[in-house]
């Protein structure tokens, strides 16, 4: 009786605990599908200008309204999912790879290598994130490519610090010592033995980092230094609509909601993964 009751309670509790993970994954998959099937889902061409329907409020023909060029907002929001998902993915992948390599070298070898990396990280962190990114974009010029370069140059530090901290502990563990005493090369011990144990917290962090990267990418595009018009991107759309807020609220409102939902998806997934693997940020 008591056994059955325990199982029952567990069954009721279990889905409740996993909800953030499932909900986050669900939102992300939904946006991914929207991005993949954009040509099928979008009712209009995202950059086609129709002067006859300028600044139309939401109607059956244009469910989210049209902008000042007569472009369909719904179609633009759908096509922009491709760009913004790409921003969130590549904006995380490059810093992740660079930071992981730098952090593992720094933590594994220690000594002056570690000192140099740590001082460099201190200096990069001294700059406000966006200010350093903007300074880099100033030099290489605006655009999505520049955003990725700036993101990689600035964002790697968080990953480097996470991995380094893990390496400092794990390199003295029994299994790492055993691998070293078997005469394996440093590279093999680092990447085949220590890395699989060290990477988990970075993976969880990368999900919440994706939120920041997405917001940064949209903000830089909003400022006019990232994705360039007429390409449909949520930050660009918000910037284009700002001049019309008194007359056409729909131009800025819907792209913003899109950003919030995608960011929510990543946050929930990060929370859920963190809970599932017992990683605290």
């Amino acid at each position, binding site marked *: 009786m008591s056994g059955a009751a325990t199982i029952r309670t567990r069954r009721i509790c279990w889905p409740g605990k996993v909800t953030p993970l499932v909900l986050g994954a669900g939102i992300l998959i939904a946006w991914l599908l929207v991005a993949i099937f954009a040509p099928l889902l979008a009712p209009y061409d995202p950059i086609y200008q129709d002067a006859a329907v300028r600044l139309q409020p939401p109607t059956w023909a244009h469910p989210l309204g049209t902008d000042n060029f007569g472009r369909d907002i719904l179609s633009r929001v759908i096509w922009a999912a491709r760009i913004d998902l790409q921003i969130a993915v590549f904006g995380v992948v490059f810093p992740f790879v660079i930071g992981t390599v730098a952090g593992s070298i720094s933590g594994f070898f220690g000594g002056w290598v570690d000192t140099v990396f740590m001082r460099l990280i201190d200096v*990069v962190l001294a700059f406000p994130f966006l200010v350093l990114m903007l300074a*880099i974009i100033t030099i290489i010029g605006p655009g999505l490519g520049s955003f990725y370069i700036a993101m990689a140059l600035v964002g790697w530090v968080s990953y480097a610090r996470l991995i380094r901290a893990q390496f400092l502990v794990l390199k003295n563990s029994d299994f790492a010592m055993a691998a070293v005493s078997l005469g394996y090369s440093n590279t093999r011990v680092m990447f085949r033995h220590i890395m699989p144990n060290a990477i988990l917290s970075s993976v969880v962090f990368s999900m919440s980092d994706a939120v920041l990267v997405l917001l940064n990418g949209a903000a830089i595009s909003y*400022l006019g230094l990232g994705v360039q018009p007429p390409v449909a991107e949520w930050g660009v759309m918000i910037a284009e609509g700002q001049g019309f807020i008194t007359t056409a609220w729909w131009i800025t409102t819907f792209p913003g909601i899109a950003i919030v939902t995608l960011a929510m998806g990543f946050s929930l997934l990060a929370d859920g993964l963190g809970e599932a693997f017992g990683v605290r940020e």
Partner: protein
Amino acid sequence: MNRYRFVLYRPIQLIPVLVGISVITFVLVRSIPGDPARVLLGPRTTESALARVREQFGLDEPLWLQYFYFVKNLFKGELGKSILYKVDVLKLIATRIEPTLVLVIGSVLLALLIATPMAAIAARRRGSWADHLIRIISTAGLGFPAFWLAIMLILLFSVQLGWFPVTGYGRTFWDKVHHMTLPCLTTGLALAAVLTRNLRASMLAELQSDQATAARARGLPETFVFWRHVVPNSLVPTVNLLAVNIGWLISGSVVIETVFAIPGMGQLLVRGIFTRDYMVVQGVAMVFACATVLVNFLADILTVTIDPRVKL
């Protein structure tokens, strides 16, 4: 180590970081393609001005010596002239500090005013619907793009209700307060999302602490224990959290100043980028970086001063 000797010792640790900041800004500006003198002075300039800049920054010398000239000029407070405004960059920045400072401080105050009660409700009624609701709101808040939130607030408070002006900074004190309320609220709300989560966690920890139990054992009412004993202690980690987030706050202010057309340092930076006014970009980046370092330093001292438990 003596707690207060730390105050003297800590600034020495800052020197490598400050040197690093100067190296990075130097490298950034020197990596712009083209003749550095022409890059710094812009397309419309005279031969004599070019010669003067070459001499002042040692642009014909080897790179390491150029860095030396750069540092020498820094110590003299000479960061060059703005191409667009035709004034010394440092003087230009000085006129732009006030709005940015008001925005940052105002945001922090509003964030504390919003986050403390929210965290208090969540921590005291742990597991209740209010706790869950606040947790959902603060999680969602982390994903709000500040520039979009700003426009939504303008839509509601300025366009619909007409309570606040849409953009600008104002002249008199109350005029400025009137203009800066929405910008501060925008950044404050974003910051409150971060603070609430952390405050809730530290309040929960403090509610279980020995001193809270001791206070309850003396028969003090729970509300008194909470506001007098728990809240002050749980605010200590917040000081450091705010310092850690200062870079993020400054980044936010750059965007928010652009949304509300506030004549601060962030707007100066963005305009500098568009007009290729490299001296201005370099100057603002450096001042922002030094400000970040300074705030973290002050937060360390403040933590040591207000919390005797902090060991160094």
